C-alpha cells in the first residue's frame, strides 16, 4: 500500500517537473526572440513561475516518495517547498518592481509600440 502511494507521488512529481521543463525551454527561447523589454517581461514570469515554481513542487513530491533517500527525504521535501513558496511570492513582486522603475525612468526603448494607455491617461502622446 505504502509503495503504491510512493509511486503515485513520484508520478505526479514527474508530471510537474516535465511541465516545468517545457515552460523553462519556452521562456529561454522567447527571451531571445521577443523584440523589446516590455514583451520580455512575459518571458521572465513564464520562466520564474512556470519554469521554477512548478518543478520545485514536483521535486518536493519526488523527494517525498523516494524511499531510497532514507530520513533525508523529509528535509529535502521541506526545503524544496520553502524555496517554491519564496519563488512564488518574490518572482511576481520583483518583476513588478523592475517594470515600474523601467517605465518611469524611460531606460528601455519601446520600439515596436502599438498602444500605451498609461501615457494616454497622463495626457501625453500615444506611443
Amino acid at each position, binding site marked *: 500500500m505504502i509503495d503504491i502511494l510512493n509511486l503515485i507521488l513520484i508520478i505526479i512529481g514527474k508530471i510537474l517537473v516535465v511541465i516545468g521543463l517545457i515552460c523553462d525551454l519556452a521562456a529561454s527561447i522567447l527571451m531571445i526572440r521577443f523584440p523589446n523589454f516590455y514583451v520580455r517581461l512575459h*518571458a521572465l514570469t513564464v520562466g520564474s513561475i512556470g519554469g521554477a515554481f512548478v518543478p520545485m513542487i514536483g521535486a518536493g513530491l519526488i523527494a517525498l516518495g523516494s524511499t531510497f533517500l532514507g530520513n533525508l527525504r523529509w528535509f529535502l521535501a521541506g526545503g524544496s517547498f520553502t524555496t517554491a513558496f519564496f519563488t512564488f511570492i518574490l518572482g511576481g513582486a520583483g*518583476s513588478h518592481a523592475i517594470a515600474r522603475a523601467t517605465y518611469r525612468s524611460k531606460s528601455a526603448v519601446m520600439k515596436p509600440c502599438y498602444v500605451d494607455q498609461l501615457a494616454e491617461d497622463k495626457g501625453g502622446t500615444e506611443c
Partner: protein
Amino acid sequence: MLINIENLVTTFLSLSIAVYIVSFLLYLIRILKGPTIPDMVIAVDALGYDLAAFFVILSILFKTPILIGCAIVLALWIYAIDIYVSKYLEFKELGD
C-alpha cells in the same frame, strides 16, 4: 515491488539536466548581448530562479542536503537584485 524506484527517479532527473543546461545557455546569450540594463537584469532573474530549481533537483540526485540551503538563499538574492536595480533606475541613487 517489481519496479526499482531509485533507478526510475535518477534516470529521469539526469535527463532533465540537459534541458536545464540548454536554457541556461540561451539566457546567457541574452545577458551578454542585452541592449539595455533592464534587459540584462530580467535575464539574470530568470537564470537565478532556474538555477534554484536546478539546485533542488541536483540535491535529490546527489542525495546531499547542502544544496537546498543554497537554493533558498539564491531565491532571496535574486529578489534583492531586483529591488536594488529598480531603486537605482528610478531615483539614480542607492540610498544610505
